[in-house]
């Protein structure tokens, strides 16, 4: 594993060579959505210019080509996450739709009043609201795994929480804290209680080599746009036999085998869950994105981000000491590169605004994790997050801009 050549990588991303407010763009918001390398933009542009047509239904050359590229992209993404078969990978709009698909199709067919669903206090709204909707509709009990003071999950009462649970649905990596959750014991405990397992891998798969078969989960949700892919596409992975037993979700073209006045029969997986014209070119872009990630090597990416995160945590601490609180673990072996922080007495929104003056892009807000924010006792945090195209200089820019911001709001 050779270390990343970040200078060369930066050159792969056109937007990183532009300016924002007159300064070099220092993009530190990849946890919200990553930037896209030229290889991805070119793959999509090329598809539109050379072989765009609706898929699956055309006999002519460009339709065949579009279909082949679309299905090749599915196989690539499936392989990237260690799936054993391409048909286990359903294309959806985003991780949110992936989780809703499970909630509408699998859960509504299998969960009944009194059953419990277990999630955690650090879930993104995408992994909260679908279950709250289900709970309200079906009388299902929603249970929450609490958090320790060190920003890890508190698993001491896990067995009690899982008692009577039909589903454990947790994030592999928190988008606020950066915390990587211990999937092995979580999944083992769920199995012991015969609960199914959904992993929200939206923050994990972009940054850490993943093998969903090794995890032993039943469902895995993620989005392309956080892993160098285009907007408008994501994926649900699930075991083939589970997908086959699930009722369809959206009805329409592509997902049927036959339609008569009296009713319809469903197509094979994965198409059974892909009603209507899919995000054709986005899938092709998604395929190009995992090619790009593979070309760098996920282990090298993870290694780079661990070092950069260590560097950033140290720099923040050295510069601001206790005036700045970091919400998340300090041990980079159990965390990703999303660093949430707050200055005493300065609102996250205002910090981001001042940073923007210097072209430094960080996110401010509740990061779609309001239950977690309430646990943390803050309305919002600022969050800087890294990807393979960030380096120490970016972190230095962040720190420099934070020094200015702190001055600006000094009382």
């Amino acid at each position, binding site marked *: 594993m050779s270390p990343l050549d970040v200078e060369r990588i930066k050159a792969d991303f056109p937007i990183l060579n532009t300016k924002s407010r*007159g300064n070099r763009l220092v993009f530190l918001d990849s946890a919200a959505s990553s930037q896209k390398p030229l290889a991805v933009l070119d793959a999509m542009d090329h598809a539109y210019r050379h072989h765009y047509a609706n898929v699956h239904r055309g006999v002519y050359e460009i339709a065949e080509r579009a279909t082949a590229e679309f299905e090749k992209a599915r196989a690539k993404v499936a392989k990237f996450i260690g799936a054993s078969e391409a048909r286990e990978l359903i294309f959806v709009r985003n991780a949110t739709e992936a989780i809703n698909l499970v909630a509408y199709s699998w859960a509504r067919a299998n969960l009944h009043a009194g059953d419990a669903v277990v999630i955690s206090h650090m879930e993104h709204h995408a992994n909260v609201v679908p279950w709250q909707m289900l709970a309200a509709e079906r009388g299902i009990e929603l249970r929450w795994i609490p958090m320790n003071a060190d920003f890890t999950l508190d698993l001491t009462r896990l067995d009690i929480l899982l008692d009577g649970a039909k589903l454990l649905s947790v994030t592999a990596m928190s988008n606020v804290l950066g915390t990587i959750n211990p999937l092995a014991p979580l999944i083992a405990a769920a199995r012991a209680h015969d609960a199914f397992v959904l992993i929200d891998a939206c923050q994990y798969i972009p940054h850490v080599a993943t093998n969903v078969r090794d995890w032993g989960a039943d469902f895995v949700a993620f989005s392309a746009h956080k892993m160098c892919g285009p907007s408008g596409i994501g994926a649900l992975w699930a075991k083939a036999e589970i997908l086959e037993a699930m009722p369809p979700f959206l009805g329409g073209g592509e997902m049927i085998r036959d339609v008569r006045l009296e009713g319809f029969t469903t197509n094979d997986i994965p198409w059974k869950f892909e009603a209507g014209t899919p995000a054709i070119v986005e899938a092709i872009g998604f395929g190009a994105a995992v090619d790009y990630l593979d070309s760098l090597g996920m282990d090298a990416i993870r290694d780079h981000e661990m070092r950069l995160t260590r560097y950033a945590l140290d720099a923040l601490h050295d510069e601001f000491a206790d005036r700045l609180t970091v919400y998340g673990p300090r041990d980079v072996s159990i965390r990703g590169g999303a660093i949430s922080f707050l200055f005493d007495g300065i*609102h996250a929104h*205002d910090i981001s605004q001042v940073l923007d*003056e210097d072209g430094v892009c960080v996110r401010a*807000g509740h990061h779609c994790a309001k239950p977690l924010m309430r646990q943390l006792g803050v*309305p919002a945090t600022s969050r800087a997050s890294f990807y393979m195209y960030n380096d120490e200089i970016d972190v230095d820019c962040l720190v420099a801009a934070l020094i200015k911001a702190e001055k600006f709001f000094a009382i």
Partner: protein
Amino acid sequence: MAGLEDLYREIILDHYRSPRNRGELAVPPAHKTEGFNPLCGDEVAVYLDVDSVSGLVVDIKISGQGCSISQASTSMMSDAVKGKSVEEARLLIRAFKALMSIHESKLEGESDGTDLAADLEGVRLGDLEALQGVVKFPVRIKCATLAWNTLQQGLDEIGAELPN
């Protein structure tokens, strides 16, 4: 390009650092309304004591958390409406939204530019005009209007409760 000084005028930072009318009122007789900015998590609670006979906002208190813009706007709003009639408060809301370039229910190209003038006619915004710089930072407009939308909702709720 708009600079930070347009956004963070001194008077705004002053209201942020020393917010007016912070606190709570007993409910009832006061009325409490909560507002959320779904994007950033800011929350505000507006306590209104409206005299049903005179129709005046006899007292107003504010609690909640938010950025400097939302806190300053909330503080200024409370100063501006305290002691005013409900009718005047409503005119202020309309004028403030006009200042924020919010003309509801209009599709691009359908506005003829006269709305702002019309909405502002006869209304003195005073200090509130310091918030005009926010318009150049579209994402922050919601910060500035949170308190006002909550006030509007509160007045609507009180109005609905009143016998008429």
